[in-house]
């Protein structure tokens, strides 16, 4: 089985994030880059599918040169090889363009399943799976918290507000996962050493057959018009418990329509 897992490097959520004032894009240099958290679950799921059904796991990353750290980590966790789509022309691409660029790169890797985290902690658009499935003309299974492969069928539980839906599709397919799906493994020291020897193919726009006029900030379909820092958190409300603490909490929750 040819399993491709999409891995994005994002700024560490532990460090404060800032947009740059000149072009309204994220200041990626200012923070440590880490693997987008949900993508770690995607990697784990890819490895599990490989362990159960055989095949190969390819990491596909679009991002600047320093994203290699995240690629190495994914390889150390156990992925077999990686494709790194890196080109200055891609900087500032929006979701629509990103899905186009990844579609092109997938044309080179081929795939039976594409697995990705359901959203990234930086942009949080959560639309990439849907866009990819549309572009690739294959089924999408989004927000999966359980995945099973049975021959050419893929069965999944899709998380909803009320529980989950059971959905089924035929491969090839695009699958996005949520954090309830598994517990991502740590890379092992042996894995770290082995990762050094695993192939990482670097692709520029031309290599991937990407039309430069369709990607990058200047050609984006969407534009960040304005932004502001999130307001500082206001002082919380302190309720003194005079024997009626429980009632007061219930009152508060009701006032916010939580109950």
């Amino acid at each position, binding site marked *: 089985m040819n399993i491709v897992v999409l891995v994005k490097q994002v700024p560490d959520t532990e460090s404060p994030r800032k947009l740059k004032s000149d072009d309204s894009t994220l200041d990626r240099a200012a923070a440590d880059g880490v693997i987008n958290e949900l993508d770690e679950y995607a990697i784990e799921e890819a490895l599990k599918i490989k362990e159960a059904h055989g095949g190969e796991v390819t990491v596909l990353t679009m991002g600047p040169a320093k994203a290699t750290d995240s690629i190495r980590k994914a390889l150390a966790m156990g992925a077999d090889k990686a494709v790194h789509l890196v080109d200055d022309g891609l900087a500032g691409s929006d979701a629509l363009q990103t899905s186009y660029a990844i579609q092109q790169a997938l044309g080179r890797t081929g795939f039976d399943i594409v697995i990705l985290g359901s959203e990234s902690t930086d942009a949080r658009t959560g639309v990439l799976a849907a866009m990819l499935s549309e572009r690739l003309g294959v089924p999408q299974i989004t927000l999966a918290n359980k995945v099973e492969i049975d021959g050419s069928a893929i069965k999944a539980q899709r998380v909803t507000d009320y529980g989950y839906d059971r959905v089924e599709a035929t491969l090839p397919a695009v699958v996005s996962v949520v954090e309830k799906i598994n517990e991502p493994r740590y890379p092992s*020291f042996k894995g*770290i*050493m082995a990762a*050094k020897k695993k192939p990482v193919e670097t692709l520029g726009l031309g290599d991937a057959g990407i039309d430069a006029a369709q990607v990058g900030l200047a050609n984006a379909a969407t534009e960040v018009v304005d932004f502001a820092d999130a307001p500082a958190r206001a002082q919380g409300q302190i309720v003194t418990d005079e024997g009626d603490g429980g009632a007061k909490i219930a009152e508060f929750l009701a006032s916010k329509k939580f109950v």
Partner: protein
Amino acid sequence: MPSQLLSRRDLEFLLYEWLDVERLTSRDRYADHDRSTFDAVLELSEQIATDHFAPHNKLSDAREPTFDGERVRQIPEIKKAMEVFSGAGLLGAGLDAEHGGMQLPYAVGSAGFAWFQAANVATSAYPMLTLGNVNLLMAHGSPEQIDKFARPMVEGRFMGTMCLSEPQAGSSLTDITTRAEPQDDGTHRLTGTKMWISAGDHELSENIVHLVLAKIPGGPPGVKGISLFIVPKYLVTEDGALGERNDVVLAGLNHKMGYRGTTNTLLNFGEGVHTPGGRPGAVGYLVGEPHRGLAYMFTMMNEARIGVGAGATALGYTGYLKSLEYARRRPQGRPVAGKDPATPQVPIIEHADVRRMLLAQKSYVEGAMGLVLLCASLADDAATAPTEEERARAGLLLDTLTPIVKSWPSQWCLEANSLAIQVHGGYGYTRDYDVEQHYRDNRLNPIHEGTHGVQAMDLLGRKVVAGGGAGLAALTERIGETVERAGKAGGELAGHGAALQAAVTRITEVTAALWAPMDVEAALANASVYLEAVGHTVIAWIWLEQALIAAAAPPDAFYSGKLQAARYFFRWELPRTGPQLDLLASADRTTLDMRADWF
């Protein structure tokens, strides 16, 4: 928020900017490594320590192990942490490739392991002891013993202990009484009682491999008659499966001030509770030759003592970071120059006296971490430097520094923990915060692995006089090189260098004066003062080294902090050695002349 366990930035500074561990990758042993593998190991260590060691640190302190007469019970988080730790292959990090290891330099391994010690020193004691045991077997065990006992420990299936102490013999191992009777089949049967054995019993692993010091009847008296034995809790059959229960049993758990998550045990060997092969007596397998047991133990001594110093440092470090964070957030009082009660209170970090306590901690823990990593890197050099001469030089310097790297952090990073409590005010004295536990945990370190007093006698009685004074010269020459560089740098650093050189010259004089009368009793009476004076001088040297790098770097908050901490150490701490060296030079006999019945 950056970690409150250790500072990744500082570890990188020490390893890469100062010790230049990347240079090691040009040596055959480390050829598969590069900066990216070092970074990945450090990151992995931080992550597992944060996710699986730190979260149960308080819980395992509050709910210490219990013994129901049958089994030891512990909170399940400890076992889970051990599984993740060995699953990541960290135990074998430094071992030879042929033994399933990854040949990671010890300096990088020590920095990585410090994350676990900072997160949970009690849980980290299990892998630390197991690794010490494995290293000893790798060095002195037979291929069969390595296969049977060491490999399963590397894989995380077995764990190990070190059984030296007995109820009546702690510092004085000459006086151990555990006996090992030779048997016709080449094995031995052990009888005796071992006290204080860390990780001596638990349910964390399939088997426990005890390394036990015992005397074979008829051997030479004293330490020359001590042999080393493997005594497994369960015998291991030829095909590696667990066999009969051996005759070693838990007599009881010790209830300790700290390190509570580590079981600490009184073990009885050969009491007859179990009868392997149909008769009482704990089955033991001799390691190496008879009567060389203590010598074998001591080959691992440098590493073991660096490990204790690293643990003390890690506890000091996390206490420092936690009190720093607290000081930034705790509003209390107003500036002395503007006490208008209508103005809001300021965070206590705005008070100079609180900054004093933070600076003292910073200078102790970052100085100690520097010493620990330097010693670990000397251990790497002693094993793998290109020429015989370089290896010998590194080994000699390491020998001299070993009592200091064990004792200085144990004393001063404990003091750092006391200051961390002080910064927290009344809250620091409660169990709602972490720092009181760090202090209790850290209080062990001056006691085990050779007490403070034993280290002092080792330094003054053996190390500095080794090779006709070569031990001390190895240290003073290295310091001299730093002083010279500081002189060239000029300015404040040259001033630090001059102060350091003055202390070193004084130490050389005092050492000679102490030994001139050839009176061992008088010379060693004040050995602890000597250890402390030399210790502070060594840390001043480490700070000068750090300051030289910081001064040459593009200025930022990190490097400014380094320079200020160095300044603090030279202004506030190094001068303490003056009166200590005066006292030593005066050949003071106050403690010597005091009599037991005058108390």
